[in-house]
C-alpha cells in the first residue's frame, strides 16, 4: 500500500521496520519510512495512530523495540547524541520555557551541540543565533522573557532555537497546535519557505488536515501504527483515503483561488439540521 511514487530522492534519514511500544501495546508496527531530502514531509493520522511516536523515534527520543533508524548510514540510537544534534533538530510538542528566560537566551541554547568545555561561545554561535532570530522574526523581542509573549510569538522563538542549531534536518511535533489560524498559516509559510529556500529537510506532525494538504511536498497518512498512504497531496489527498484512514466522510474540493486541495466534512449538513431541531424544541 506504500505508494512511493516520488521516491527517486535520496534519504539521509530513514527508519527500517520500526516497532515501538509502551508496556504491552505496540504503537508502531514494523514501519519503514524514508524521509526525502530537501522536502517538507507532513505526518497526519487520527489520535493514537502513532505519528508523534514515529517522529520521536526518528529523533532518537524513543528507542524502537526492533528495527533501526539510520542517519547518514549510522544507527541513530547508537551514535553520539551530540553529534546527531549537529545534523538533526527537534521541536517537541508544547515546550515550556523556564520562567524569566529571555528570547535570546532561549535561542542561544540551540548552540549547545556545537559547544564544548573549551569552546564555550564563539562568533559563529553569535552569527547563528542572530540569523535564526532574523529568520523566525523574533529579533524585536530579543531581550524579553519568553513566558511573557503570545502563543505564536513563543512558538517562533522555539523555532528560532531549532534553527540556531543549524541542522539540515528538522523534526517538528505539532508546531501549530493551540494557535490562531492566522498564526498557524504564518508559521507554516515560514517553515516551508525555509525548507525550499535553504534546502533543509522538514518532517512535521500536523493535526490540521487542510494545512497538511496545503504545505506538504510529501504527505504521509498513518493509522493504527502503520503507514497507510504516502505521496504528494495531489496523489493521496482524496475522500476515499480520508474515509479509510480517518473514518471521515468528507469531500475533497479545489480552492478556486489557490488551486489547493481542501477537505470539507460532509456531515456538516446534518449538524446544521440538528441545531435547527434543537432550536425548535427549545
Amino acid at each position, binding site marked *: 500500500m506504500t505508494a512511493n511514487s516520488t521516491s527517486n530522492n535520496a534519504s539521509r534519514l530513514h527508519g527500517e521496520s520500526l516497532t515501538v511500544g509502551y508496556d504491552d501495546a505496540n504503537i508502531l508496527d514494523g514501519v519503514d519510512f524514508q524521509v526525502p531530502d530537501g522536502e517538507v514531509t507532513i505526518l497526519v493520522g487520527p489520535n493514537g495512530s502513532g505519528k508523534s511516536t514515529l517522529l520521536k523515534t526518528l*529523533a532518537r527520543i524513543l528507542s524502537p523495540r526492533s528495527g533501526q533508524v539510520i542517519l547518514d548510514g549510522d544507527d541513530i540510537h547508537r551514535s553520539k547524541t551530540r553529534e546527531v544534534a549537529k545534523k538533526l533538530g527537534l521541536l517537541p510538542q508544547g515546550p515550556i520555557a523556564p520562567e524569566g528566560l529571555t528570547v535570546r*537566551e532561549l535561542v*542561544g541554547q540551540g548552540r549547545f551541540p556545537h559547544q564544548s568545555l573549551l569552546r564555550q561561545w564563539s562568533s559563529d554561535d553569535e552569527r547563528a543565533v542572530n540569523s535564526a532570530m532574523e529568520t523566525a522574526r523574533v529579533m524585536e523581542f530579543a531581550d524579553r522573557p519568553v513566558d511573557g509573549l503570545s502563543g505564536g510569538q513563543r512558538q517562533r522563538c522555539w523555532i528560532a532555537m531549532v534553527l540556531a542549531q543549524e541542522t539540515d534536518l528538522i523534526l517538528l511535533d505539532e508546531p501549530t497546535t493551540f494557535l490562531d489560524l492566522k498564526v498557524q498559516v504564518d508559521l507554516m509559510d515560514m517553515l516551508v519557505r525555509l525548507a525550499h529556500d535553504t534546502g533543509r529537510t522538514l518532517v512535521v506532525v500536523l493535526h490540521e488536515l487542510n494545512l497538511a494538504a496545503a504545505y506538504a511536498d510529501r504527505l504521509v497518512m498513518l493509522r493504527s501504527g502503520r503507514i497507510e498512504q504516502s505521496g504528494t497531496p495531489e496523489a493521496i489527498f482524496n475522500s476515499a483515503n480520508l474515509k479509510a484512514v480517518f473514518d471521515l466522510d468528507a469531500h475533497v474540493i479545489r480552492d478556486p483561488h489557490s488551486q489547493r486541495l481542501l477537505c470539507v466534512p460532509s456531515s456538516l449538513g446534518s449538524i446544521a439540521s440538528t441545531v435547527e431541531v434543537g432550536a425548535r424544541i427549545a
Partner: protein
Amino acid sequence: MTAAAVAPTGSRQHLWLGLSALPLCVLAVTVLFGWHVAVGARSVPLGTVFQALLHFDPSQFDHIIVRQLRLPRAVIAVLVGASLAVAGALLQGVTRNPLAEPHILGLMAGASFAVVMVIGVFNWLGGFWLPWVAAAGALMAALVVWLIAQWAPGGATPLTLTLAGAAMTAFLTALISVAHLLNQDSFEQLRVWLVGSLAGSGRELVWVALPWLGFALALAMLLANKVTILAMGDEVALGLGVRTGWLKIQALVCVVALTAGSVALAGPLAFVGLVIPHAVRLFFGSDYRWIVPYSALIGAGYLLGVDIIARLILRPQEIATGIVTALVGAPLFIHLVRQRAR
C-alpha cells in the same frame, strides 16, 4: 546590535548585570565575613580581625579567638550557605519545580536521620565518616521520595515529588523524635544541632567536609549549562544532544554531596536552598551559568548575615542559626512569591 558581540548567553541585560555585580557581591561577602568574625560574646575590632587573619600573632588573645574559634565558624557559614543555595538551585532546575530544595524533598531529613541514628543510637561520634553517613541517608531518602512519586498516578511530577518529600520529612522527623524520647541523654548534645547550628562544629569537621563541598560545587558549575537546557524539558534537552539520564544522576550526586556536607557541618538548615535561588533568578534570569555561581555567593553572604543576627540579638547568648534562617527566610519567601505572582 554592536555591543557585547561575544556573549555567553546572549542576553545583554543578564550579561551586564552578571558581570558587573560580581565584584560587588564578592566585596559584600568579604565584609560580612570580617564582620561575622568580629561579632560575638566578646567583640573584636575589625582591624584586629584582618590583622589576625593576615599577620597572626599567637601572643595576642584576640588573635587566638579569631583564629581558633571565630574563623572556623565563618568558614562553615560560607561553605554551608553556598552549598545549600546551589543544591536548591540544581534541584529546582532538574525537577522543574520551584519548591524543590534539599529540605522539602526530604534529603535533609534523610541525612539528619542517618546521623542521629549513628550518633544517638550507636553512640558513635565519627568525624571523618560523618559526611558519608549523611550522604547515605540523603541518597536513600532521595531515592525513596522519587520512587513514591514515580509510583503515584502520573509519575514523578513536581507535585508528587513535593508531596512525597513532605511525607518523607514528616515521617523521618517523627522517627527522630521517637529515638529522642527513648534515649534522652545522648540526644541532649544533638538537640541544638538538629535545629541547625553553626556553633557546634569544630575545625576538624571543616577539613572533613571541605572536599565534599568543594567537589560538589565544582561539579555544579560544570553541569550548569546543561541544567538550563534540562529546565526546558526532557525532550528539548534530548533533541539538543544532552544525555538527560546521565545528567540527572550527576545532579543527584552533586545535590547529595552538598546536602551531606552541609548537614554534617551545621545540621538541617531549611529555607536557604529555597529562598536564595529564587532571589538570584529575580536579578540574573534563568541561565544556570549565572544562577549557580550567584547562588553560591549570595547563599554564603546570607548565612553569614543570618549567623551575625543569631549571635547579636540576645548577646551574650545566641539563638540557633536554624531558627533565624526560618525567621528571616519565611517572610522573604512570601515576598518572593508575591513578586513572581505579579
